[in-house]
């Protein structure tokens, strides 16, 4: 019985994976909770990495991302139209992270060092050497990003973590494309100086 149910769940998720963001939101409005799961599968990991690297804490990144999804659900429930769910979640996560940083909660909890493992790879299957390397890289990356100016860190993460284009980053952050490119160049140069031996 249980395997049969698992097969049904997998098939259902696979079907939802093909739906557009708008369709998933419509399904959620109609009462399909799993549509939110499908939306998380599509954007959640990127956003979590972005927020985690931006804030320097996975646990706080989860809180921020959960709050962002909760706001998304509230807007949908109230009949609001969301044209781009990914952009909505990104902006919401960014604003929430900035709010927390302003309240002095930027790195209050466990750092990136505490949870460097890939989510889809069990700890026991990993090479211990890789484990150590990843931990070290995550720690060094976190330190390097922490030392970057906020706008350079943001531009770098939006570009590298979420894959936004220059124009989209400019729109999200409210600056020109050339400014975004300059910020990216400075960020890359500084990160190369600190992480050159890893990359």
């Amino acid at each position, binding site marked *: 019985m249980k395997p049969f149910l698992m097969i049904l769940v997998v098939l259902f998720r696979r079907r939802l994976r093909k739906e557009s963001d708008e369709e998933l939101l419509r399904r959620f409005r109609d009462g399909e909770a*799993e*549509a939110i*799961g499908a939306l*998380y599968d599509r954007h959640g990991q990127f956003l979590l990495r972005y927020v985690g690297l931006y804030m320097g804490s996975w646990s706080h990144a989860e809180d921020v991302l959960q709050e962002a999804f*909760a706001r998304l659900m509230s807007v949908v429930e109230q009949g609001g139209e969301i044209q781009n769910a990914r952009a909505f979640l990104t902006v919401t996560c960014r604003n929430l992270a900035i709010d927390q940083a302003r309240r002095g909660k930027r790195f209050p909890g466990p750092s990136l060092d505490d949870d460097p*493992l890939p989510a889809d790879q069990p700890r026991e299957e990993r090479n211990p050497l890789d484990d150590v390397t990843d931990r070290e890289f995550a720690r060094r990356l976190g330190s390097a990003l922490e030392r970057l100016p906020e706008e350079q860190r943001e531009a770098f993460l939006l570009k590298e973590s979420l894959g936004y284009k220059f124009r989209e980053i400019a729109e999200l952050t409210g600056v020109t494309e050339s400014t975004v490119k300059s910020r990216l*160049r400075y960020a890359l140069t500084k*990160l190369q100086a600190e992480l050159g031996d890893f*990359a």
Partner: protein
Amino acid sequence: MSDDREQRLVEAIYGECHASPGDEAEAARLRAFREGLAGRLAEVQPSSGLRARLVAEARARAKARRSPWAVWAVRLAPVATVVLVVGVWLTVQPRFDQIETATPEQTAARVAEEWRAVKPPDRAPEGPVAADSKPQVAPALAPATAEAPAPAAAPKAAEVAATTAQPDVATTARPDAAMNRQTVAARRERLQKELAILGAVKTTTRGGGKLSDVLGSGGLGGDELAKALSSPELDAAGSGESQGAVSGGFGGMGRRGGGGSTEGGSGYGRILGSKSAAPAPEVPPKAKGDVGGLGGEDVPVTAAHEEAPRRDAGPVELEEAGPAEPRAAGAAQPIVTDVTSVVAAAPAAEPVVAADADEEQVVAEKKVAAPAASFPAPAKPDLEGSCRPFERALTRATTTPARVDATLALAECRKRAGAPGLARRLLEDLLDDTTLSAGDRDRITEALRGL
């Protein structure tokens, strides 16, 4: 570095263009670093239980959006469906059973049973019949049956056949003379249909009469038929005997046995007298049935009456004996009753000659001939229908004396229709009227006593 060079350098790092010749080396170096860093970043996939939490929250929100009514409707829908299906089945299934499994005989029996069930309460005997409530035996009856008096069976059958064949008689001015002629005709038609369907009895007699037509249906109509037959028209033209007498005459033929009806067998003679315009035979009123005996068409009857004048028929004996349904002790004995007098009194043209004087035997054989499914459901006796004219008169009455007259007439009609309780209530309600005169009150009180 100028803005243009810097932008071109960044675009070159991300592969969107070529860097300036002087910046190619730096662009290549940064591009290699960036690609390596991106690869490492892609591997950073923090494990998280966030997905499950988000789905759970979405589920809770979806549930909260549903109204309580919708939630309960979804929960109760299966139960309501089951209840509905069971209810419909319980309603329809008995009818299916009746339609699919009942044989014509069963249907006939069921119809007869329903007729008996809806039969109006027996009326109190009237006139000499009412006065003599003890079963009596005709003086000339055979000694063997002297202790078990019974109503005259065959004569009543003849009587019914005669009266149903000649329904039109003048109306008198009695209080119930205004009874709707159509109602009487409708009853008669319905009962004749009953007789034709359920009581087809084939007789084998040298006389070749149709006595059996009535024999077979005896008792099915019961008082209903008697009531129709005892309409004012019939009474008026003949000897003016009461309904009770007629009812008894027919009831004696009933399936329930000779004594099944209330008023015994004395009535037939009066009806015959009225029908034949001849002097009614002197049949002493046996009154008050319940003496058992005939048992409808299934009981052998040996008829012999020495005193009654014979014309062309002798005593009748019905063969094909069946179990009787006696209603009094000794009723199961063969019953001797007066048949010949009835036959003698019947009109010459009536096809009711039922017996031969020599052989004195009639063999009756009952056959149920009607298709059961096509037979209409028996209607309840129309107790109130015959009183509608009085009700209308009461409705139209505007003055107190007129209302009193109309109410008294209606009460009398209801009493005759077998609903004395209704009549009593009607009169008692009228007594509450404070505008009544003393004379009116006396009349009403008198009428109440008569109930």
